[in-house]
Each structure stands twice: as C-alpha cells, then as structure tokens.
C-alpha cells in the first residue's frame, strides 16, 4: 500500500462521533463468496433506486446510526498526510439530515429537481471484505454519476470511490456507513442534489 494514500475516515469528521468503527479484516473475499455476491447485489439494487430517485425506498435501506460522509478533497503536496479540507465536507450526514433532504425532494418546490435530472450511477470495481462481526461487511466500489438536466446545458459527471459498511438487521442488509472519496477538488456539477 502506498504510504501516502489517505483513506476517508469518519473519525476525521466533527460529526462522526456516532459512526460505527467496524473495519475490514483480511483479504478481499472471493468473487464467488456468498457474502461478496450479497454485497454486490445490494449495491446494484441500490444504484437502480438512486437512478429512479426513489429516495423514500433508499432511506429504508439506511440504519439509524448511518454516517454518510463525503469530505472536500484538496490538492496537497505528496506526503502532506491529508488530502481533504480539515473539518469540511460536502455531505456529513446522519439519519435526520438525510431524511430532511429526502423530505425536501418530496415537496412540490424542490426546483433543482423539477424537472428531474436524468441520472445514472455506474457502479464498478466492487470488492468485499469480512469484518470481525458476522453481521457486517465492508464493501468498496467505484461510482461514476452521470447527470443531465434540460436540453441545453452539458451533462455533468461526478467520479468517486466508496467504502460502505453493510449490516444485517433482522435478515435485511442495510447501509450503516458510507465514506465517499471524491475524485475532484472542485465539483463540476451545479449542486449535489443527488446521492452517491
């Protein structure tokens, strides 16, 4: 592992105190491992929900202690030891603030999504890790979000890596933590009225 690579970590957030600290254990699970197949399927199903902007259904997939965190990336010199703006994120969400965001889209006055964007989440490079708990898995993926609005402006892209913590609750897998590593320091999209 490159010693200069910095992982996104809930503990760097001023609001990450409630987040689960479960981390990966051991090597990548085999691609025919049932746990990997389960996690991969979960991500693909989720991507369809997000593309359809079925946010109430998406909200049901999140645990009560969700930390949904996308720090602001900055360009720093090699070896600086950090590549995010200290104490600043695009998303630094708990269940309450995500619920409010979803509730807003359900009003008739969320103009930025009326008319709605056409969005497509391309999810790839999926790999899964076990944790020291049977009911939790860490799954990493790359996501490319394509978003087109109207018929005049150019479409916009957001590229990011994600490290998710999935937890089995009453037989159902839910998202307990999502750490999003944006690939741009300056977002080239008019807003992030979407979820990654």
């Amino acid at each position, binding site marked *: 592992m490159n010693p200069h690579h910095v992982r996104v970590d809930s503990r760097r957030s001023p609001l990450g105190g409630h987040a689960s600290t479960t981390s990966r254990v051991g090597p990548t699970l085999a691609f025919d491992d049932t746990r990997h197949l389960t996690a991969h399927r979960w991500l693909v199903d989720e991507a369809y929900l997000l593309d359809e902007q079925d946010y109430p259904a998406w909200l049901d997939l999140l645990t009560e202690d969700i930390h949904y965190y996308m720090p602001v990336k900055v360009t*720093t010199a090699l070896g600086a030891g950090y590549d995010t*703006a200290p*104490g600043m994120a695009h998303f*630094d969400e708990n269940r309450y603030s995500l619920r409010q965001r979803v*509730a807003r889209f359900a009003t008739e006055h969320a*103009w930025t999504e009326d008319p709605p964007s056409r969005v497509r989440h391309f999810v790839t490079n999926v790999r899964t890790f076990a944790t020291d708990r049977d009911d939790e898995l860490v799954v990493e993926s790359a996501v490319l979000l394509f978003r087109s609005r109207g018929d005049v402006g150019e479409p916009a892209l957001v590229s990011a890596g994600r490290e998710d913590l999935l937890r089995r609750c009453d037989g159902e897998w839910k998202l307990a933590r999502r750490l999003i590593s944006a690939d741009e320091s*300056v977002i080239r*999209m*008019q807003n*992030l009225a979407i979820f990654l």
Partner: protein
Amino acid sequence: MLDHGTVLDDVRRGMTPAHIYNDREIFDLERERLFSRAWMFVGHESEVPEPGDYVVRRVLEDSFIVARGNDGEVRVMFNMCLHRGMQVCRAEMGNATHFRCPYHGWSYRNDGRIVGLPFHQEAYGGEAGFRRKGQTLLPAPALDTYNGLIFISLDPDAPPLRDYLGEFTFYLDYYTKQSASGIELRGPQRWRVKANWKIGAENFAGDMYHTPQTHASVVEIGLFREPKAEKRKDGCTYWAGRGGGTTYKLPPGTLDERLRYVGYPDAMIERMKANWSAEQLAVIGDNGFMVSAASVFPNLSFVHNWPKIEDSDDVLPFISIRQWQPISEDETEVLSWFAVDKEAPEEFKALSYKAYLMCFGSTGMFEQDDVENWVSLTTTAAGSMARRLLLNNRMGLRSDDSPVVPALTPDEFAGPGVARVGYGEYNQRFLLRDWADHLERPAVRHAPVEVGTPAAPRLGDDLAEAGR
C-alpha cells in the same frame, strides 16, 4: 459593438439589460476595469494560523499564494516563478518553508525571497547577470485586512480597504467579530456553476423577495422555526458603503432573548455584548433586526441563518462566507466557507457546521434551488432577444423614482446607511451602480515589472534587511 454608455445608463435607472449576465464583451470590460481595481477577498488569517501555512487562491486567472512567513506575517504573492513563469506552488494548501519551482529548481522562502538559483555564478555570472539579492516573488500590488479577512487589489493605488468598505464594516462585524478572537474558517467547498458571477452577488445583497418562492421547500419540511416564508417581508434591507444585506425581524424581546432566539448560547452572547458597539447591539436589541444574507462589492457574500438540525424546536445559527469567482461570462466557481467564532464552544462549532451543510454550500438545501435559477437565467441571457429586453429591477421605486416605503429613521434602525422594511431591489441597484461606475472608468496601464536587472525594483530590500 456594444454601446457601453447606454448599458450603464439603463443599469443606473434600474432597467437591467438582460445580456449583461452572459456577454463576452461585458466580461472583458469587467476584467479590464473592475477586477483589475476592486478589493478582492482571498482568504482569512485563520486559514494560515502557523508559520509556513499557505493556501493558494485566484483573482480570475491570476494565482496567488497566501502564506504566513516564518516571521509570522501573512503575505500574498503571485504564484509564478520569476524565471520561466512556472507555478511555484501547485497544491491548494499546506505548510512549507520554501516554494521550489519544479522546472529549473529556483526556490523561494515562504516570505517570497529567492533563496535558491541553481548555477547562479556559472549561468548568470552571479549578481552581475541576475540580481538575486532582495528579489522576491511578485507581491500582490495591494494587500489589506479587516477582522482577519485578507483582501488584495491588482491596483497598487487602490484606496485603503477601510475606505473602500466604508460603513459596511459595521455589518461585517456581525459575521466576523462575535468575540475578540474573531472567526475561524473551514473549507471552502468549491464547485462550478454555469451562471454569471453577478447573479449570486445581487441575490445575497438584497433579494428577500425570492425567499418565499425559491425556498418554499425548506420551510415546508420544517427546517425553520417560522412557519411561513413570507416572514421575510417584515425584515429590512440596508446598504452602507460598499455593501448591503438583508435582515429578519425578530419577535419582541430583550437583546439577550433575541440572541437566544436565533440559538446563541449565553457565553457567546456575553462576548458579543463586550465586542459590539452600542449601535450594533441596538439594531438587534432595540430595533429587532438580525442580519441574514449580505454582499460586498464586487463578489463576496455572507449568510447567517438559524435552522433546526435535529428533531427538536431548538435552532442553531451558522455563518457562511462565499465568493463568486468568475470563470467566464457564463461560468462561476463558488467558494463557500463555513465560519464560526473562534471562542465558541466545540459542541456549538460542530452543530453550527451541521446547520451550514444542511442549508448552504454544494449540498445545501437552500443553495440547490438558487443555483438552478441562476443557471437557467444565464443560459437564456446569451441570445439576441436578451439584448432587446430591459429587465425591470426597479422594485421599491415608483415611476417618478419616489420610494414605495420610506427609509427607516435612526430610531427605527441604528445602523449606518439606508435601510427599508420589505421587498425592494435597492441593494441590487446599489451593487450594479458600483459596477457601472467601475466599467465607466478607463483601464490604467501598469508599468511592467522587470526582475533581475539593475533597473529592477528590489521589492524585497526591506525583507532582506529584516532577515539579517
């Protein structure tokens, strides 16, 4: 060819030619006559707290390093090597004792002085060929600060910052001086929007009228204590010196009760009372107005609001500082910082940051809908029909130019400048009047700066002395 005179005259009577929001010729004029002169925000001292700390910021295309030298002084230096023009710093932030050009290895101390010039003797014959002694990266032509806010001007003859800001400093203190220690900044979030830079500046300067419509959704989901967005019209707008803004009318109560109403803890209230003037306190305590959005000409804005951030009736106030950095006539990079009083309790800082993220910035539920409007407006302003349309931005004025509502008296509003209750576009007109005044004045040619020759001004002489 553009008839500037007509455009500026129309702007001054509140009839805005729609094309000024997407016009290459106008943008070229803004670059030549406005951004070349006005005081431009580049950061806050709290962003570079330690010796060697730096951030890199732009004024249009010009890249500047804002660095705190080993001597503790904050300088702003043009980010271009004196030799072949390479950027000497390619990171956005960090800590460095030196900036070393990767091209030929010239290096500069964090105060700008050249310290390394490879093969100086062999390549130049030493000082006889290139006078290294006392030579520095080009400093910003003018640099000044207010409450730790760092501004530069590309005009060496710019008036002092305080003269430029004028009486708006009275209002700046609400955002940036809640205690003797002032604010600390976090961020910025940066993102690009296909909108003209003036739209955000005008909106924050005085557009209370858009709130009930544009931001209906955030009121509907219960983000605020007030159940109706129309409450906005009870507030007032004010303009003073080089800036203006909007306020909310607070419910009846004492100064303390009103500051508590917007969510400030008592310890912070005590510090505000110790740091703000009697007049600054009277605007809140006696007049019942609390600052919300504001803009300083040309492209710096502020916002203060107090949403609910959890399932409870409590609200949490936050402050954001933002810059509408022009990229072109139809594109703006938004830099949006979260600001908080340095002396605020840590828990307050965390929750205030939460309040900021929910409302403003790249994911903010307010800001999302604003930008949608501004992009749409900019797109439509590019065409030929937009060149025929004079937008009526005369709100608050009758056809004979008499005001719809009278200005508040000093008893009603203790702050400087002119304030009026209700909806009006006074502030947008004030901002565009400053804009027109700048665009009218021909550009000044600045003498080229020659480096390394005997004729070259030796900008760093005083520094070299100090360094000995």
